[in-house]
Structures are given as C-alpha cells and as structure tokens.
C-alpha cells in the first residue's frame, strides 16, 4: 500500500534527521564527561568526570559569565516584556493619529540587523562612558526586542473580542485597569512565548557583547566561551564542559516551554 510505504519513509526521514540533530549535542555532553587531556574529540567515554564542570565553573570563570548573562538577560526580558505589553496594547486596542506610520516604523526596525547599528552604538556609548557596563548590553537589546514584542503583543490584543473591552469601559474601568485586569490575563500563552524567545535571543547574543565589553568581569556566557576556547583549544573535555554550561539554561527553558518556542516560530508563518 502506498500509504504504508510513505509512512515508513516519513518515519525514516524523521528518525535520521532527528539523529543527526542529536548526535553533535549528545557528543559534546559525552566529551564533557571525559577525562581531561584525552586526545580524542569525541572519543569513547572513559569515565563520568563531572569535575570538568566544576573546573570550568571556577577556573574557567563560567560562574561569573553566567552571572553576567543572567543579569543582562533577565533585565532585557523584564524591560522588553513590560514595554512591549504597553506599546502592543496601544497599537492593538486604541485608535490614534499616526498609528499606521509608527507601526510600520517598528516593523522596519524588526528587520534591521545588529550589524547595521553596532558601529554607532559602540562609538556613541563609548562617548557616554557606557561601554563596559551592563547598560551597553541591555539597552540596545531592549530596543530590538521591543520591536518584536510590540508586534507580537499587538497581534494578541487584536484577537481580544471588542465587546469585552466595551463591557469594561461601561463598568467604569480605565484603560490601565482594563489592560492588567481584564485583557492581559487572557494573554498568558502569548506573553510566555514572547518571554521565551526574547530570553533565547538575548542569552545567545554574541556580537554585541564582543564589541561592548572588554572587562572580563562583565563577559556574558557566549563571550566567555569564545575567550575560553582561545585559551583551551585542545582541552576538548574542558571546552565541552564550558559549552554545556553556556547552552544549558536556554535548553532547559526550551524543554519546558518547547510548545511556546515552536508556536512563536510558526506564528510567523501566519503573518508571513
């Protein structure tokens, strides 16, 4: 039966490509557990050497790197979420002059790559003595995330039935109360997805950190890993351990919220 054959083919494809996706990841975890100094990159695991992680954590300074990443990422997520909710609310539920122009401006901003703005960002922030501070990492990323978040939240707010807002208005609710008590409680999935995506993008950001930060104490995790690699090109086990440390937070978040991550990406298909 043709259907049977197609089904087998489908499972085969899914299986093979899933494996290909997993093998490097599994391999790096295995490598992190090897004894240090072994020459093989992805050799047969010869032990369960969890101390590699401890070494990376302390000697490799990954504790500091993670702390920086947490500070920056949490700040960006918190600020972006708040600002995006406010702006998305205005765009999605209020009528005002200039709405279309401003919205298209933000849409444009969504497509602006960091590479196009990094140059003046660095030099201007340097003039303001803000380079080598967390602000240099937080503010530009909030700016970019707000473009995405506003767009995302606007879509949610537009999906709320108008009669609900009208009922609240008749009940004497101000726009502020309506936002936080009536409408936003409906938007937990949307907000959660937005938080997940912004967290991922911010945590994984490299170029901005590379340019803005030279003080080792402020390095975020990806930047820390890059420097770590520079110092330990052949110590594969240690390098792998560092990599795992850097990637784990987002992966953990992903495992718990994978539905939201994927929904976020798929929703782009509806818009696109």
């Amino acid at each position, binding site marked *: 039966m043709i259907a049977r054959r197609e089904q087998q083919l489908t499972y085969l494809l899914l299986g093979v*490509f899933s494996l290909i*996706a997993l093998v490097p990841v599994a391999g790096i975890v295995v490598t992190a557990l090897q004894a240090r100094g072994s020459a093989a990159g992805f050799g047969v695991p010869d032990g369960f050497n969890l101390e590699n992680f401890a070494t990376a954590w302390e000697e490799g300074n990954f504790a500091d790197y993670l702390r920086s990443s947490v500070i920056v990422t949490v700040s960006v997520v918190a600020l972006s979420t708040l600002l995006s909710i406010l702006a998305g609310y*205005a765009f999605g539920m209020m009528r*005002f002059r200039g709405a279309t122009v401003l919205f298209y401006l933000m849409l444009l*901003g969504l497509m602006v790559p960091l590479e196009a703005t*990094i140059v*003046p960002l660095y030099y201007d922030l340097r003039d303001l003595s803000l380079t080598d501070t967390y602000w240099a990492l937080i503010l530009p990323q909030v700016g970019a995330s707000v473009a995405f978040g506003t767009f995302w939240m606007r879509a949610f707010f537009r999906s709320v039935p108008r009669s609900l807002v009208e009922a609240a208005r008749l009940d004497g609710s101000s726009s502020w109360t309506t936002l936080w008590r009536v409408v936003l409680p409906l938007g937990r999935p949307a907000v959660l997805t937005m938080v997940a995506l912004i967290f991922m993008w911010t945590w994984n950001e*490299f*170029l901005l950190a590379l340019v803005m930060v030279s003080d080792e104490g402020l390095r975020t995790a990806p930047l820390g890993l890059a420097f770590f690699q520079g110092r330990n090109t052949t110590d*594969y086990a240690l390098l792998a351990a560092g990599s795992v440390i850097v990637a784990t937070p987002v992966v953990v978040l992903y495992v718990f919220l994978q539905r939201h991550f994927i929904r976020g990406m798929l929703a782009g298909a509806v818009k696109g």
Partner: protein
Amino acid sequence: MSARAAPPGEPRRVAYLYLLPGLAVFAAFVLAPLLHTAWIALFEWDGVSAGEWVGLDNFGALVTEPELRSAFWHALVLLVFYAVLPVAIGLLLAAAMARTRVRGLTAFRTVLFLPQVIALVVVAVMWRMIYAPEGGLINEGLRAIGLGGLAQNWLGDFTLALPSVGLIATWVFYGLAMVLFTAGVQKIPPSLYDAARVDGAGPVREFFAVTLPGLRGEIAVALTLTTIAALRNFDIVYITTGGGPGDATTVPAFEVYERAFQSGRVGGAAAVGICLAAVIFALSLAINRFADRGLR
C-alpha cells in the same frame, strides 16, 4: 452637537503615553543608530581622530574592493547552505508526510528544533571540535572505518572551509524548516490530494500541484528567517575560522567587525552594515512578494 470622531471615554491621546517608553528605547537604540550609520558611512574615520568626508566612496568600495566583493560572494554561497538546503530537506519530509498520519510528531519536533535554541557560539565550538583534523569526530570516524584517506583539514582548507562552515548552518536550520513544513502540511486539506489523485497525478505531480503551493506561506517564512541569518553570519565564522584560511570564509558581518574595531576603517564598516541592511530588506520584500503573488 458633537463633532468629535471618537466616542467619549475611548482612550485616544493616552495611547501616546503607552507607546512612549517602548518607542523611545526603540528609537534611541535602533532607529537613531541606523541613521547614524548611514552618516558615518560617508566618512573615512579611524574611530579616534576626526573623520574625513568621502561621500559615497565607501559604498563604491563595496563593488570595487576585492575583499568586500568576496565577502559578499561568500555570503551568497552560504545562502545555499543556510536557506536552500534546509528548505529542500524540509520539503523532502513534507512530500513524504503529505498524506500520512504521524504519531509522536511532537517528540520529533522537539528534537529537530533543538539546534535552533543553542547559542551559535556553542554550535561553532561544537562543530569546530567535530571538524578537528586530529581527534575530531569526522576524521576519527573516517579513520575508524578505514577511510582515513578521506580525512581533511575541513576548516583549514582553502576550498573546503566555506562549505564546511555552510554545513554547520544547514545543521542548525534544517530543523526549523522541517518543523515549519510539517505543521503546514497538516493544514492542507486532504481533499486536494484526493482530487489530484483522481486526476491521475502521481506522487511527483502531487507534490508540485498540491504540497508546494500549500506550503507557500511556510516556505516564505523559512526563506526569510534563514536568509537573514545567512547574511548576518558572524558568530559561526568568528569561532570556527576567523575569516580564514586567508580570506576563504570572510563574510560581510565579519568585515564590519574587522573594519570598525580592528583596522580603523569605521566608515567602510558602516557602509557594509548599511548594505547588509538594505540587502536583507530587499530580499525579505522579494520573498514575501513572491509568496503573496502565488497565493492569489
């Protein structure tokens, strides 16, 4: 007689207050720098002393300077690995999956999408180890099965470096395409396939007549996301090859970094950045125009 357009009590001017904080940060850290970049691009500047007006020379260099030309050429090549290959792989799966019921799809999707959430720096470190000439998974694997003669210095070879970097990107992005397309394929009404079959269409014909058009939106999204990622490629190149060997794997984003922060050619860097933004914008528009037209 009320001549006001808005019903009384409907929030109007207060909207600006809601917008202000987000818009302010956005304008200050995205829009203003964009304009500023365009301005800087008109100067030759080393980042320290005063800059010198050169008008459109930096933009001209984009076409004339061989380093920049090859950087953009490499970006184009990488587009194949970032966008074309993943989309092709995704379509392959979509074609197979078109009329079948798949169980456990969620589990597969979780795994396939995983490469997307890992920081590119980590991905690059990972693959650098895989590609390592001694001790790397590929070469050791080849040697283990007696094909040691095929072992290469993947990232260090002038011809192989760029494709090797490209394949990393393919690994990162094929899952995205697969997830997008499997979701899209499930939305295609089975009656379309039945109609095609009744018309005597074989699997190939079905793919082109039903599956492909049905996935237009998803293909557009996949192409847009991967194209932008391809043009922005920095992390992977920085970690794996640093642009080398020689100039074999330079990319525009890397040129921006190198010129602005290492060789004191800030104006030139700005010009490259502007050009990148323009290309991204144009390609996004073109891809979506294509998709819309098809949908009509």
